[in-house]
C-alpha cells in the first residue's frame, strides 16, 4: 500500500502567485492602476501646495523653498515616469477599443514601458542636482 509522502497545511508558495509565464497584460493593468492612484494623490498634494498662495506670495515662496528637498525631487522623478507610462498605456487601451493591436498587446506594453523608462532616465538627469546637492 502506497501512502502520501507528506500531508501539510497550504503554504504561500503552493499558490504559484508568481507564474513561470509572464502575464504581460495583467502587469500592464496593475501598473496602470497603481500609477493612476499615484497621480491622483499627487494632484491632491499639488492643489494643497498651490492653495498656499492664497495666504500671500511670501507664504507660497516659503513652501516652495521647503519643497526643494531630495525627497520631493525623487517623488517628482517618479511622477514623470508614472505620467508617461499611464498616458501611453491609456493610448494602448484606447487602440484596443478601436480594434487596433489586440494581437500585439505585449509589444505595445513593452513600448510604453521602454518609453517610460527613458523618461525616468531623462528625469534622473534633470533632478540629479536636486537629489544630490553640492
Amino acid at each position, binding site marked *: 500500500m502506497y501512502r502520501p509522502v507528506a500531508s501539510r497545511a497550504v503554504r504561500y508558495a503552493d499558490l504559484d502567485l508568481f507564474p513561470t509565464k509572464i502575464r504581460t497584460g*495583467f502587469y500592464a493593468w496593475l501598473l496602470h492602476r497603481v500609477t493612476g492612484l499615484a497621480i491622483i494623490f499627487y494632484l491632491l498634494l499639488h492643489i494643497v501646495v498651490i492653495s498656499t498662495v492664497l495666504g500671500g506670495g511670501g507664504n507660497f515662496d516659503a513652501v516652495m523653498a521647503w519643497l526643494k528637498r531630495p525627497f520631493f525631487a525623487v517623488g517628482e522623478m517618479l511622477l514623470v515616469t508614472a505620467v508617461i507610462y499611464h498616458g501611453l498605456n491609456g493610448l494602448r487601451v484606447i487602440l484596443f477599443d478601436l480594434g487596433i493591436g*489586440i494581437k500585439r498587446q505585449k509589444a505595445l506594453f513593452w513600448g510604453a514601458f521602454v518609453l517610460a523608462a527613458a523618461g525616468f532616465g531623462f528625469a534622473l538627469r534633470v533632478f540629479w542636482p536636486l537629489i544630490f546637492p553640492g
Partner: protein
Amino acid sequence: MTIDRGKTAGNAGGNGGGQVAAKRPDKVTLKVYRFDPDLDKEARIEVYDIPWTDGMTVLDTLFWVLERVDGTLAFRFSCREGICGACALFINGSYRLACETQVARLLDEGRTEIHVMPLPHLPVIKDLVVDMARFWANYESIAPWIVARSKAPEKERLQSPKDRKRIDEYVGCILCGSCFSACPASWTDKDYLGPNAMMKTWRWVDDTRDAAKDERLGLVAGENGAWRCHTVFNCVEACPKKVNQAAAIQGLKRKTVSAMLRGAKGLKQGRKGLEE
C-alpha cells in the same frame, strides 16, 4: 502499465516522443490540493512520489494516486484528449488541461515538482473539483444557440467556408472555465458575465446565420457586460485552446456602440426579445 524506466531508455520513438526519452528522474513529486468540507477545517497539501512513466500526463498522475494511494481524491475528467474541458486545473502556476499536460514538459520548464491546484477564485467543492455554477449560469444567460427567424430549410442552414472561418477560433472553445477563473473582473464582480459568455456572444454576433444580433448585443451592453472588461488579457493567457476572448469582447464593444448610434430597437429587448 507502469513501465520500468531502465527498459525503455533506448526507446526514443516510443510513447511521448524523442525528447521525452532523455534523462528523466525515477520518480516525480506531485503536490495536490486537498479539501473535504465534511472532514477538514482547512485545505491541505498532500505530497506523493510517483514512479516515472514515459508519456505520463498530469491526469495520469492523479489516476495513479486515485488507484493506489487514496480513492477519495476528487477531480473532474472525461475525454482524456483535450476536448471535453473537464480537467482544467492550475498546474505549476498556469491554467492547463491535466490530460494534455505532459509531466516531461513540466520538468523541461525547470520545475522539479508538480503543483496541482483547483481553478483559482472559484469555490472548492472537494479537492480539485470547483463550483462552476456561475460560469454555466452566465453561459446560459446569453442564449448560446442560433436564432434564425426564417423558415427552416429542408436540410441545414448553409454558411460559406469563408464566413465559417470568422468564428472558427470561438467555436474551438471547450468551456473549461480557465478564462473565467483567470479574469480579475470576474473575481471582484459576482454579476460579471465573464470572458467566456461574452466570447460566445461574439461567436453568434459574428455568425452570418444568426438573426438576433442587436438583441444579443443588448445582453452584454450593461455595466456587468463588455464594458467591465479592462483588457487585462488574463483570459487569453489562460486559454488552453488559444482563443482570443479579449478581441471578441472588444468587437462587442464596437458593435454595441454602432448599434446604439443606429438606435437599434433590439438592444433594449433583453433575453425576451431573443426568444421571440
